[in-house]
């Protein structure tokens, strides 16, 4: 995976496969301690303890087509190779929380990538799911909620190209606003 946005996309695919109706992505910069947290929460079917304890093992998967599952192990590796940490918690029937923390100034921290494009496209592709995005840094915060956008659109689907384009720009501005001057890949 080239950047953090692709890991988020990958984990959100897991959430949709787990029949979530709400997926919340939080990206927060904790500038005092130099950490960037990426949290993906869902209300999907969750995992039992046995599967959860083994889920970071690449030879653990729910797929039936093959015996390997690399999404979570790769996400974990990307955080750990940049001096950060990874945690996953889950409860059967309630949902799952995946959290990776990156050391912001570590040379191996991947860039955020196209977060705006990933969120816009995923929200358009899974319109039955409510997507939330929260970006925070210091006392600044940006919130996006796909349901709120849908209400304003009154019948125009999220997948409409003009809407997807607007979502990309809207979230892009949020990223610049919150992480400009904090993450060096964001130029604002």
């Amino acid at each position: 995976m080239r950047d953090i946005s692709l890991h988020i996309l990958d984990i959100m695919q897991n959430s949709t496969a787990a029949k979530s109706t709400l997926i919340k992505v939080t990206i927060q910069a904790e500038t005092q301690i130099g950490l960037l947290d990426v949290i993906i929460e869902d209300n999907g079917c969750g995992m039992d303890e046995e599967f959860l304890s083994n889920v970071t093992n690449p030879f653990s998967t729910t797929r039936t087509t093959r015996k390997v599952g690399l999404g979570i192990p790769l996400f974990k590796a990307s955080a750990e190779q940049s001096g950060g940490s990874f945690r996953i918690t889950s409860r059967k029937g309630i949902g799952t929380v995946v959290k990776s923390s990156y050391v912001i100034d570590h040379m191996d921290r991947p860039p955020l990538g196209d977060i705006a494009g990933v969120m816009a496209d995923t929200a358009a592709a899974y319109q039955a799911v409510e997507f939330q995005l929260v970006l925070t840094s210091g006392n600044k915060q940006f919130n996006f909620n796909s349901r709120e956008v849908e209400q304003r659109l009154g019948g125009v689907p999220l997948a409409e190209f003009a809407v997807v384009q607007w979502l990309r720009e809207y979230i892009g501005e949020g990223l610049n606003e919150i992480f400009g001057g904090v993450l060096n890949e964001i130029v604002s």
Partner: protein
Amino acid sequence: MKSLAELEAIRNKTLDQIKMRTNKSGKRVVVGMATCGIAAGARPVMNAFTEELAKRKLSDVSVTMTGCIGVCRLEPIVEIFDADGTKVTYVKMTAEKAARIVSEHIVNGRVCQDLTIGAAEAESK
């Protein structure tokens, strides 16, 4: 600064257009977006489809994503469904191939045989 109020303008503008769409092609573009697809470059491929379709104003063709299609070594994989449910599977996709598939397959209805899974499998034999 963008604001949510702009969505109302988009709504007013597109709602009429949506009503005008009588000739529904019903075609669907489905991009494999599991770990294997993403790592192989499915994101730029999906972007290319969306942009190419928007450029040609083919708003009745939907672009969505799915999980692992099952042949990870041939990723990025894209499936094109026609209105009657017929499916063509394109493999080892790139943004350039996406543009070609939009003009040849989606617009003109000619399947790009050389890019399909059948062609890729015949080659490897």
